[in-house]
């Protein structure tokens, strides 16, 4: 969070004589840059990934797609009662009508077309596997290199140890933190300068759990990388399981981003946004608060 007290920006600002607040230097420049690179690359990776998925919109568990068992998830079409196209999603054999969203959605001329995910959610917008792969693999490199830089930086700068590692006090206060989140209460003053314990755990799970998993499952799909140590992908259930886990991890990241953005909004969108752009976060001084 902070880069240490020596560089902390502590300039106070008096506004209207009543409220006292100060700008606190919350996010170091490398973290800010890497954060926005992640925003860009993860968006592109998700959308190009959905286009790749659309080339064969079904997921399986096992070493191959044809093991004798059916797919665990499938987006397809069937003919409706009046001959109209119906988009269908089957999960573990249960069928859902998802016309307009999954299985069948508007094509280039607005007509209902067979398609896994809708065109507005994919890069490129039309079904174009070769181009989607080009986008996906280029930004996968950007993403991996950015991730490696982040881990090295976070260890070297002690960002990880100082800002992300939960303290003993954090662990003791976990019950209160859960209650605060449920009630949408946010820390102010001195406490708002630090990540809260749930926030720390969420970031750690994403940084050291989900992101490495999604990268590893991407590698597991590469036939060439399978030959590094033949059979290594069986640890994850085989290549098709790896593809399924890659997909699940992607949506788990989407869920994380939705919660993350939600928290940003309810705890002061402009203040948070500013702190991730300029690094400076406004902290309301305790004691004089909104002293009227």
């Amino acid at each position, binding site marked *: 969070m902070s880069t240490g007290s020596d560089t902390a920006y502590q300039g106070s600002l008096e506004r209207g004589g009543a409220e006292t607040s100060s700008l606190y230097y919350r996010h170091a420049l490398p973290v800010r840059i890497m954060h926005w690179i992640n925003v860009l690359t993860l*968006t*592109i990776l998700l*959308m190009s990934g959905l286009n*790749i*998925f659309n*080339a*064969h919109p*079904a997921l*399986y568990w096992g*070493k*191959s*797609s*044809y*093991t*004798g068992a059916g797919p665990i998830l499938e987006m397809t079409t069937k003919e409706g009662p009046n001959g109209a196209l119906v988009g269908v999603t089957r999960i573990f054999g249960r069928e859902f009508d998802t016309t307009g969203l999954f299985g069948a959605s508007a094509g280039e001329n607005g007509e209902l077309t067979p398609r896994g995910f809708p065109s*507005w959610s994919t*890069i*490129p*917008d*039309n079904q*174009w*596997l*070769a*181009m989607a*792969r*080009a*986008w996906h*693999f*280029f930004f*996968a*490199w950007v993403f991996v290199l950015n991730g490696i830089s982040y881990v090295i930086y976070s260890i070297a700068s002690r960002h990880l140890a100082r800002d992300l590692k939960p303290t003993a006090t954090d662990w003791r206060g976990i019950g209160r933190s859960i209650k605060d989140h449920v009630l949408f209460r946010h820390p102010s003053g001195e406490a708002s300068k630090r990540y809260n314990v749930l926030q720390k755990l969420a970031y750690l799970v994403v940084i050291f759990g989900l992101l490495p998993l999604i990268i590893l499952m991407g590698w597991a*799909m*590469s*036939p*060439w*990388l*399978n*030959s*590094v140590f*033949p*059979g290594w*992908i069986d640890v994850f259930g085989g*290549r*098709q399981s790896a*593809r399924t886990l890659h997909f699940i991890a992607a949506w788990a990241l989407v869920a994380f981003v939705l919660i993350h953005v939600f928290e940003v909004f309810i705890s002061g969108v*402009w203040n948070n*946004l500013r702190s991730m752009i300029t690094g400076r976060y406004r902290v309301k001084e305790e004691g004089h608060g909104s002293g009227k």
Partner: protein
Amino acid sequence: MALVNDRRRFFRRALSGAAVLALSGCDRLSRTEWFPKFLGISESLSSAAQHLITTRKSMAQEFTEADLSPQFRSNGTAKPNDPQYQAMAARGFSDYRLELRGLIEQPVSFSLAELRELPSRTQITRHDCVEGWSAIGKWKGVQLSMLLERVRPKPEARYVVFRCADAMENDGTLYYESIDMEDAYHPQTILAYQLNDAPLPVANGAPIRVRVERQLGYKMAKFITSIELVSTFDHIGRGKGGYWEDLGYQWYAGI
């Protein structure tokens, strides 16, 4: 406060503007000449990185009979529409000849019976399609390296090009693919004439298809009629080394 509001309005506009630009921009970029080329940098990067951590003889995973897919899926051309091919298939490929030519010391051709008489390799491997699905099959065939030793490639030979009997739907072009010499000499690179203990079915590329086990399915040309050794792809299709490569797919299909 006016300043703060201005700044907020600016950010709000910048954000929504960026989102719209990004979406339509991605599609516009995809249709330019230069951007896909720029993205293509990652193909060389992936290939270099993957070759760095594997050896020339790193083996693809082999499976057991229990892992076999009940039916090996047919993909691409299921039945070439060329009458000559169909007539040959009707005769059980008894007059089939596989021709080897190009940058070799000793051009030669083999009948199917001659190929079957050569020492063979049997492998149960997984076929990964670029679309995302996989199927496991048992292949038997002759190692390409064995044929190459017979024909003695010239030092300038860098790629092995496969010419096929199947005309593609889009434009009627006969399928073609290529691999480099490393893959050509790989122990698992075989010219398969059997699938799951039966003669290779037409749907899977009879009489001969190549197995390149560390790459995706589109590298594994079916219905092979001839093999040509070349130093460049200049005179092959549109110069990218394969039918799908000429339509924008990566030549390196190890990923």
